[in-house]
């Protein structure tokens, strides 16, 4: 607005100058002086520059007493200079649209070919059929994401990511965060991806594979979302150290909201990260985290029941405790990732959850008692960009069914033991990104996550990004 005013004044001044050159009368110069005096309150450096030009022009006007044409050209020049100086002002967007939030749209979809029916796929001991989030075979439309973001005012930044999936529109994330606490503190509130682990806070379109790792899928449900608050703090050290905590209510599977209508915190997390560079070509990030959730839902998480016979009811889950470690390493020659780069990611998670179980073994009557399952899982993946537009990647992940601790009521229940099976999946992918805004991927999974069958899965996937230029986390 101010720049506009300055520009307008500059043009008026320049035109007045031209007129002054022609007429060579001092009253008009007086007029200009008065205008400048008025503008002086703004005390902008540009005004001073203009004032200097005016003085110059005055000088040439004085000289022009003899030659009017000379003065005219000097004034025209002054006008041109003034306009040139103000050109940047004219380039700024001036409509009210300039305040609209940044808008971006992600289009995803592709073709899925699998040797097994996705509707019957389960992860033995972890996830029952129907909870894996696999696409239907054949052509499929993936999640369409719309993100709007902007600074709310001088104190807050706000962002919403809406996802459209099979006719459902949901708030994937919708939060605001502080920009002005200072001292390394940032507060966040609303619905957001939990800060635990590495993969969890990466949006689907930013994944290196079409699907997520087994352990992420089983323990955190692709992206664990929290309705609540988050506080994080960056230490004032050259080495990156971040500490964070969250509290709120978990959203969706495997921590469903259905029975979270309760006062207080339903989930609380703590996380810490340490990172830095090694030379100019290498950088790393290591993280550790812990999560505790009150799991009041009746039948969750029930995945482990699959493969265990005789369980009639898994009641009133108690606490779920999760903890994990993650490690990310990235390499790019001279720190320039355009031509070639490599990244390595590894995550490990452990889950321990309590519940009360009613068990109907062969024979009369049932047994009922406390039950704790201790499970873990991990994955490693490496992605190599060998050409500016081409990347190849490998991933291996597996789950460990661990052990079941049975309370007195269940002691000796026959057959109530973890299935003797280790779910595994190997994935290989090749993707092509003709620009920063489009990516096409071919992926093959050899999926041995369900006992007794191997699923050969092939994805052909596209991910397109329209609108505001996304800025991605490390």
């Amino acid at each position, binding site marked *: 607005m101010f720049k506009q005013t300055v520009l307008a004044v500059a043009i008026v001044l320049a035109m007045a100058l031209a007129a002054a050159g022609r007429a060579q009368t001092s009253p008009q110069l007086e007029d200009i002086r008065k205008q400048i005096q008025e503008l002086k309150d703004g005390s902008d*450096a540009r005004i001073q520059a203009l004032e200097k030009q005016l003085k110059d022009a005055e000088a040439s006007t004085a000289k022009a007493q003899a030659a009017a044409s000379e003065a005219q050209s000097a004034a025209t020049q002054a006008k041109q200079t003034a306009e040139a100086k103000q050109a940047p002002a004219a380039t700024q967007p001036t409509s009210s649209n300039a305040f609209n939030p940044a808008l971006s749209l992600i289009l995803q979809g592709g073709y899925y070919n699998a040797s097994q029916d996705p509707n019957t796929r389960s992860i033995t001991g972890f996830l029952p059929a129907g909870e894996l989030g696999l696409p239907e075979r054949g052509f499929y439309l993936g999640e369409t994401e719309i993100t709007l973001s902007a600074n709310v005012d001088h104190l807050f930044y706000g962002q919403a990511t809406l996802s459209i999936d099979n006719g459902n529109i949901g708030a994937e994330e919708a939060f605001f965060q502080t920009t002005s606490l200072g001292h390394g503190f940032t507060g966040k509130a609303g619905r957001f991806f939990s800060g635990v682990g590495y993969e969890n806070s990466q949006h689907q379109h930013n994944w290196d594979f079409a699907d997520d790792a087994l352990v992420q899928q089983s323990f955190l449900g692709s992206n664990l979302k929290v309705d609540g608050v988050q506080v994080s703090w960056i230490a*004032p050290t050259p080495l990156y150290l971040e500490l964070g905590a969250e509290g709120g209510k978990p959203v969706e599977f495997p921590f469903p909201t259905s029975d979270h209508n309760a006062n207080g915190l339903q989930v609380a997390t703590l996380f810490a990260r340490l990172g*830095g560079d090694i030379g100019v070509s290498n950088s790393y990030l290591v993280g550790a985290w812990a999560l505790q959730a009150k799991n009041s839902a009746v039948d969750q998480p029930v995945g482990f029941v699959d493969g265990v016979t005789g369980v009639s009811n898994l009641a009133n889950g108690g606490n779920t405790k999760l903890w994990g470690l993650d490690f990310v390493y*990235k390499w790019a020659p001279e720190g320039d990732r355009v031509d070639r780069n490599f990244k390595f990611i590894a995550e490990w998670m452990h889950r321990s959850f309590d519940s009360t179980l009613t068990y109907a073994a062969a024979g009369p009557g049932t047994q009922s008692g406390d039950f704790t399952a201790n499970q873990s899982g991990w994955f490693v993946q490496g992605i190599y960009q060998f050409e500016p537009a081409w990347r190849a990647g490998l991933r291996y992940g597996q789950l460990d069914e661990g052990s079941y601790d049975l309370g007195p009521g269940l002691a000796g229940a026959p057959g109530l033991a973890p299935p003797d099976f280790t779910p595994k999946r190997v994935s290989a992918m090749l993707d092509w990104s003709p620009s920063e805004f489009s990516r096409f991927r071919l992926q093959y999974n050899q999926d041995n996550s369900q006992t007794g069958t191997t699923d050969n899965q092939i994805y052909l996937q596209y991910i397109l990004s329209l609108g505001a230029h996304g*800025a991605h986390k490390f």
Partner: protein
Amino acid sequence: MKSPHMTSGFKLIIAVLALVASLPAYAALEIFACEPEWAALSKELGGDKVSIYAATTAKQDPHRIEARPSLIAHTRAADLLVCSGSELEVGWLPVLLQTSGNDKVQVGKPGYFMASDFVRKLELPSAVDRAHGDVHPYGNPHIQLDPRNIGRAAKPLSERLAQVDPANAAYYQARYKDFGSRWEKAIAEWEQRAAPLKGLRLVPYHKDSVYLIDWLGMVEVMNIEPKPGIPPSAGHLSDLLTKLTQQPADAIMYSAYQDPKAAGWLGERTKLPVVMLPYTVGGTPEAKDLYSLFDDSINRLLKAKK
């Protein structure tokens, strides 16, 4: 009665406190410079009153930087950000600002200085459409290769230094005065020395030299990239060969951070000289500071002209 445990506990606490107290506090004004040219200008203007962290090197494409943990840590410590702006850093700077928890350098604060706000930008697009590649809607952000732009940014930067560090305002003003007059003289010398370059027809890899070309009156015949930010394919390169027979050029050019392969391939087939320009401070061994950046760029172009 003190237990031995208690005593050693106290000793430990005191030792830790002493250690923390002895850590070097950030005494000088901390500057986070997004690109090496702004680190160099900050050094010229800030002298020994500032401590500068250059976030990128001349070997890195400033469009495509990762928001690495080390960059977040340094953004956290900064009193002043000095960057090109005009969306050059749009792929990484927003993440740094959002995660750093540093209120001093947020958009609109005195600690947020974008040099391109103070210059006249070239190549303002009339239509912003990604079909044209990664177009910058606020004009070409590679402003540093016109030394007059560095001069234009120097004054507001010195004023900004004085604003965020008023105790040393007089110092910054004096440094600017000195730099401003030396810089003006240097520009006049460069313009004189580069006079033979006028009309030189160049094929740069990316649209990152338009300010240099504009300043010295050279001509950009075409770019090796088919669209800004899109790497050239083999097919596109052979198209370029054909085009170059119709629109002759004098030299092929690329910047230190770019892959030399495509430029080398074209040079071999067209028999045109291939010039690598430093692009920013540190891009070549000769380009050690702002002055030698332009000395070396002009030298290399003059050599190609021969």
